């Protein structure tokens, strides 16, 4: 049968992976696009963790940010607009041995994919989900996204977006079985890296919202935040995202936060200004759906045949 040779080799020589092992095609994002920084961070984490590239799968939907898998030297699944999460969960369901990174956009995740978003948080399967939130539809050239600021002019709302933007953070903090929620910005590589690494280490679904610059279609949305770091509120604390003091010092505004404190996390997000970065919530005790989907994994064929015969007995007259 194609693709299913039956003699998996078991012994492999020891390997060391360098950054190039995680490089794919030349990234084709616009100059200044925040996506590039995230790509670099993920590649570095893969190297730091020495993940065999063949054991990693990057899954995405459709959008600028969803081009992500094409630029990574691992396996990739660049699927349908709004649908990366069901695919990623499906991959994990019978392949717990694979590391899964999901790249999704604010349109992909919070608009067309919103139903899957809620439910993937509930399933809480072991993977990292990166929400590239540039507050706009990039690939299709500037339409309003759920996170577009009210009043910002787009091609579908030339006189300005009509409604206040959906806040993905408060939305997620209300959803059942969320187990890891963090926010970071594309323009601080150290904080970005540390946050994604923490999500990677988290057992369960590590959700990271990344404020991502799109100079082409939503220039200015994060300009203030970038220019004036005091508009950001860096969450600190022993259980939070850890960065070097030099990095931490870049953020004048800090607050110690216990990521098990859901109420405070909500209050911080609800305030909207300053904009929190860091680990908002974490609870590793929440059940993971993987435990159920993996049922019978590796059961020998002979046992399966025997069990099946027993099933057939039930129908035999």
């Amino acid at each position, binding site marked *: 049968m194609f693709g299913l040779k039956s003699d998996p*080799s078991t012994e492999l020589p020891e390997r060391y992976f360098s950054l190039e092992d995680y490089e794919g095609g030349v990234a084709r994002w616009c100059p200044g696009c925040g996506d590039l920084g995230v790509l670099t961070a993920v590649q570095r984490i893969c190297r730091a963790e020495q993940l065999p590239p063949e054991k990693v799968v990057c899954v995405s939907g459709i959008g600028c940010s969803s081009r992500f898998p094409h630029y990574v030297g691992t396996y990739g699944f660049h699927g349908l607009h709004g649908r990366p999460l*069901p695919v990623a969960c499906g991959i994990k369901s019978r392949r717990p041995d694979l590391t899964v990174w999901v790249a999704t956009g604010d349109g992909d995740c919070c608009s067309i994919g919103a139903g899957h978003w*809620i439910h993937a948080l509930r399933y809480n399967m072991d993977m990292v989900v990166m929400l590239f939130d540039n507050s706009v539809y990039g690939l299709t050239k500037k339409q309003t996204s759920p996170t577009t600021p009210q009043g910002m002019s787009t091609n579908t709302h030339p006189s300005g977006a009509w409604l206040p933007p959906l806040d993905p953070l408060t939305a997620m903090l209300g959803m059942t079985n969320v187990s890891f929620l963090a926010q970071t910005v594309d323009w601080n590589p150290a904080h970005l890296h540390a946050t994604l690494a923490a999500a990677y280490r988290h057992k369960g679904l590590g959700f990271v919202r990344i404020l991502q610059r799109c100079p082409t279609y939503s220039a200015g949305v994060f300009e203030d935040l970038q220019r004036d770091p005091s508009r950001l509120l860096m969450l600190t604390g022993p259980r939070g995202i850890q960065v070097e003091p030099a990095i931490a010092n870049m953020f004048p505004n800090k607050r110690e936060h216990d990521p098990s404190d859901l109420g405070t996390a909500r209050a911080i997000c609800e305030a909207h200004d300053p904009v929190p970065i860091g680990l908002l919530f974490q609870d590793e005790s929440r059940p993971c759906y993987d435990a159920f989907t993996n049922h019978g994994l590796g059961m020998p064929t002979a*046992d399966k045949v025997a069990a099946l015969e027993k099933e057939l007995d039930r129908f035999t007259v």
Partner: protein
Amino acid sequence: MVGNVSDAPAPAETSSVVRLQEHIIEIVSDSGEGAQKAGQAYGAISAKMGNGVWTVEIIPAEIKPPARSRAGASGIRVRVGAREITNMGDEADLVLALNEQVLYGRIEQGAYKPGTVVLLESKWAHDGLAEVREAYAKAVAEFRALGLDVRELPLEQACLEVTPDPRVGKNMFVLGMLCRLCNRDMQRARDEVSFMFKRKGDEVVARNVALVEAGYEFAKHNLDMEFEIPPAPRDHQVVVMNGNQAAGLGIMASGMEMVAMYPITPATSVSHYLAGAFQKVGGCVHQAEDEIAAVGFAIGASYAGKTACTITSGPGLALKTEFLALAVMAEVPLVVVLVQRGGPSTGLPTKVEQGDLLAVLYGQPGDAPKIVLAASTIEECFHMMVTARKLAEAFRTPVIVLTDANLATGVQPFRRPEVHAEWMAAPLDQSPWDPEITAYDWNETTGLSPRPIPGQRGGQYVLTGLAHTRFAKVAYDPHANQTGCDMRSRKLAALASTLKPPQVNGEPEGELLVVGWGSTRGAIEEAVDRVRADGHQVSSLHLRFLSPMEPGLAEIFARFEKVMTIEINYSDAADAPLVGTSGQRRLAQLATLLRAQTLVDIDSWSNVFGQPLQPGPIHDEIVRRLQHGGDACSA
């Protein structure tokens, strides 16, 4: 036969056994009275005795319709024969009814004929409410006027002698009656009932066995009839199940371990069965948040090397359209079980239709060639799952297996499959990938290519639904897209070139060839056999492969004067108003396909009654066509 048995039953021990080639019974009642359980037991006993059996449920439209309502008929039909039985047959011979009102709906649906014996619970004649008594009397008179042979029997009263609560036990009493009337093996009946109630404890078992025996005695003393349906000799073990259970077992036998679904009638019960069975055989039913997520989840598992299955019906298929195209485009093996129901839209959720053929073939924008099979028997519901998984992997493409509400709920004995280890998917290949081989290393002739599985070192590629090259690289240039489309299409030609022409049922030439697909096979073949017995040169052909089709169809068609399809889906009647003037009659789905492919003037006869086809009306239509010599008159 003696006249009607009235409330005061006459002793009737004098009956002599009538030998029959086949016999159709129905048990109808309000829902919740256990009619289906009794019928299933009766079917199982018959199957064990070596008879051919076809069981089909009678389902009311609502979850709990009001008692004694005309549309509320809930129950079961069991057709038992001296040979293999492949369909529900025509009118019932014997009906056991727990109230008279539910019979109206069945009569409207043409389930009975003059002479059908109706054994009717007579307690309503003495009901406290005058309107009930009147309705009962009126109905009995009407039924008799229609020629039904109504026998009024005090069933509840008779049950009371054995059980304090006849509402719960009456179905077993009925089973006992049937055992007597149809000469069923009582020991098998006792065993069956014991097995059914085993979990509820000895006392319950004993009470129900007593009820069966009481029913037997009651019939013996009160009814002057007794039939016998001789068994067909059989040298193999048989299993008895419905098509959804067969599909579930087939999925496990194919080695698939992941079924992602969203509940939808009439497909859901596959997952009900598997939710329990996978606990033993290893695997998981994922009930997703919606149908889109279900197919996406299955595609994810398949991409990762564990070919998965998604199960659905019409509205769910509609939602899976986009992902199906992705699976075609990116060449992901995937098995879709589509249990068809009445459409369009929410349509007739519990009823049968073969209305989704064109939708699976053509529903996806752009060109999306895929493999489509249709099961024609419950046995095929099992075996096609094994085939489907293999084809999906070998051809790196989605395979859709069409079944329908008739197969899903019909019950039939068939040869017990001998599970082979080779049916199961090979263990996950995690050996290093030959870097010389591209992600889509298309064979120019067949379009086939081997597939890297995540975890295979050196096989890394990015799957995409965008147009792409053999390196899996996105490419918008004209030739890359043309090549991709060519390669995907060639896989169908490659598969077709391995198939044999289908077998004609009957002579290879004649006046008329009837072509069918899916669950209508039994009814069509039975009808064609009858027409041939009438002296006509009629044959039939049943297609199992709908995409690609089996080869040689044009040659087969050429040997018949006329070719027509018989299907359960919509077609304009040839004499419908305005259809003639516009010259655009909308034909049934397979007919449309075959015409385009073979240019043979293939007519169709079809309806959207939501009912399984029965051999009688098919027989009559064929005869009408042969007589009229034209296709101008159809319905």
